[in-house]
């Protein structure tokens, strides 16, 4: 199993500084784990491209088409003329279209979130419980002992309160 260096910090600014230093030293994408979202993390680790908006858009588009097809298709398959109204009546069917647009948009957003954030986690991943309370962790994968030592030094110089070696995938 891969070994990771993990530094625990008590302030988000120190964690960001350590992550920036690790990235500058040639380590591949250090991960910052925190109890709250950290502002300004994109400037240090680079802007993340999210696929969620595409999921939302295409989900909603699919829902809209499916909604209208459902209302109009079933009306044609079972002709039931009432009140002198057309069989394919646009205004009421737009309401069904609207609701299904939103329903499918919501479901697709969830799917995008699940895939984009690599959840649920089935394998053991790098984690320490302190980060769910008040600590900020910076962790990086280290393939060999030399890189582990370098990561250790960088984390130490950035003011880590504690440095651990943790097994698990990033």
């Amino acid at each position, binding site marked *: 199993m891969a070994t990771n260096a993990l530094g625990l910090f008590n302030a988000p600014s120190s964690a960001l500084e350590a992550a920036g230093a690790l990235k500058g030293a040639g380590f591949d994408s250090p991960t910052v784990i925190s109890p709250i979202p950290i502002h300004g993390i994109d400037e240090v680790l680079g802007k993340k491209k999210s696929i969620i908006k595409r999921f939302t858009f295409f989900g909603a588009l699919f829902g809209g088409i499916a909604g209208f097809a459902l209302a109009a298709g079933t009306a044609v398959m079972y002709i039931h003329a009432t009140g002198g109204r057309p069989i394919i009546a646009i205004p*009421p069917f737009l309401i069904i279209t609207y609701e299904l647009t939103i329903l499918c948009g919501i479901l697709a957003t969830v799917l995008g979130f699940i895939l984009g954030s690599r959840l649920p986690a089935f394998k053991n991943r790098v984690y320490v419980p302190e980060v769910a309370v008040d600590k900020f962790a910076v962790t990086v994968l280290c393939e060999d002992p030399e890189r582990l030592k370098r990561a250790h030094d960088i984390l130490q110089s950035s003011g880590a309160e504690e440095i651990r070696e943790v097994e698990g995938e990033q």
Partner: protein
Amino acid sequence: MANQDISFAQINDDVVRSLVVTGRKYYITLAISILVTFTCFVGPWFYQLRYGIGAAGMNHPTVWGTYLASFIFWIGLSHSGTLLSAVLHLTNSEWRKAMYRSAEAMTLFSVMVAAMMVMVHVGRPWFVHWAVPYPNQMEMWPNFRSPLMFDVMAITTYMTGSIIFIYMGTIPDFAAVRDRTTGWRHHMYVLLSLGWRGTDTEWNRLHWAYTFLAVLIVPLAVSVHSIVSWDFALSVVPALHQTIFAPYFVVGAIYSGTAGIVTVMFVLRKYMKFEHLITKLHFDNLGKLLLVMSLLWTYINMVELFTGWYSESSEEYEALNFRLFGFYGPLYWEMILFCALAPLLLISKRFRTSFVPMLILSIVINIGMYTERFLIVATSLPRQYLPDAWGMYVPSLVEIAIMVGSFGMFTTLFLVFVKIFPSISLYEVKETLPEPQPKPQADSGAP
């Protein structure tokens, strides 16, 4: 915003305590609410199923009664939770963070109770799946031109959206609680947290997904109560066939939902000991919102009366006359007192920041709002066009019991919720606190 002196760890402690430490008062309240649910809801419903829908007081011409009034009430109450939470999320309102979780839970359980009221109302709930479009041997499909089918689609979407919205916002908190619990609770939170760690990528994805959900849910919530209003307004019944009905229902829904949030906040603050998280600021802001909604609601009521009177058609006159001065006239004026006049007290900041008066007012408003829904149903259908088609509607004991039981069911669901879901959003309350600063170090620590 929460009290600024508390630490991150204290927030975790408080929330975990609210989940695992359960006092006698909780069990007694839970027992009472379950008892009320069974004696007032389940029992009378079985009676009605056994002896037929005649057990309810509904009859020609008033074929809609308190079941539908309760349905509108519960759907209305559900509105402030998810809608308010989504709007405040999109506008970056900090004060939302301590209260939105419970508000969203309120939404979810209100929608569930509302769905149950439909089951009770339809009389033969074992055929309720006929409203779902599925291929069947009769080759029949639901009629999507009917407002009732709009309802089915809207409420299904709203319930699904609300469940997802509350669940997604809670994933990081499930993870925080997961690390602090043992036994069955731990296993449950391991599953619910999906292995959340709080990495930069996970926070980024959660932020975007949550924002998109909020954007989708705001118009959805507005559409849901508009559609509920069309159940009535798309008929040709005098006093129901009104163009103002959709905004009237949406405003009424947000109004009664906000009052519901005040009630829930008071109870959480007092009995879950969240005094330092839910503060006067929350009550002040909710009070302002209530005042605005109350003025809007009063305005729409005046417009409704004015347009009915100005139409100068005898059937509209009669319907309005019956509502204002008929058998249920006193209830109308009670509604005006509770929902239009009493909330004017909210002009005073001292009133808005006093907890007990706010609790009393929030309950009074919701009594008024239930009355409003009852009057919509019970004073319009009995006065349609020809006098020989007029009738009278008085709810039967079974209907009154089921209405009371629906409150028991809501309370039961909410009490179970507060022991499973962290009722305060841990990570978002932490965000409102000052950012932790690095400790000054005597030694740089460099080797």
